[in-house]
């Protein structure tokens, strides 16, 4: 089986991992309850989407 010939330095390792990061989701504000909500999704706080209630959040 092929094996690594040389050890990778910390710099090489860290440089490779420089692109490993999380990005925050884009959030909008619900016009109904002014909580943060995902765009094009039902508001999880009040259950409204496009001005009408579509899911019962109290259930």
């Amino acid at each position, binding site marked *: 089986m092929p094996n690594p010939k040389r050890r990778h330095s910390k710099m090489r390792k860290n440089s490779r991992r420089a692109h490993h990061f999380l990005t925050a989701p884009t959030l909008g504000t619900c016009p109904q309850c002014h909580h943060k909500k995902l765009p094009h*999704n039902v508001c*999880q706080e009040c259950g409204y989407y496009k001005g*009408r209630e*579509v899911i*019962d959040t109290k259930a």
Partner: protein
Amino acid sequence: MRHLNSGSKLGRQPAHRRATLRALVTNVIIYESICTTIARARAARPLVEHMITLGKRDTLHSRRQAAAFLMTPLATKKLFADIAPRFSQRNGGYTRIIKAGYRFGDGAHEAILELVGYKLKKKETKKKEKVEEAEPAETAKAKA
């Protein structure tokens, strides 16, 4: 190559997939609004619309075609008697998919698949139920 780009297989074999889609369509007809995953909603949507088209055609043959696909006779009855007449003025676009965030358990992206014109029945009806519950109790007391 655009191989396998049309429609979703939903990770199922053909018979299983057909059964899943029939169940979804039947439930949309019965409940008028269901919450499922986006992939399932998108796969079931054209089938629901086709069922409503069959309902609007309203012939013996179309009724048999619908009954062969839907899982319960009650759903077929509701489709032809209740749902199809509602959409007599609308040419297609009978359903709506609304994205509903991510499921807690497995992180699946959920969606609501509903018939256009569906209005949410709120839980406020609980008050009425309480009143109804109270009344029989009183009559029971009166009888006693």
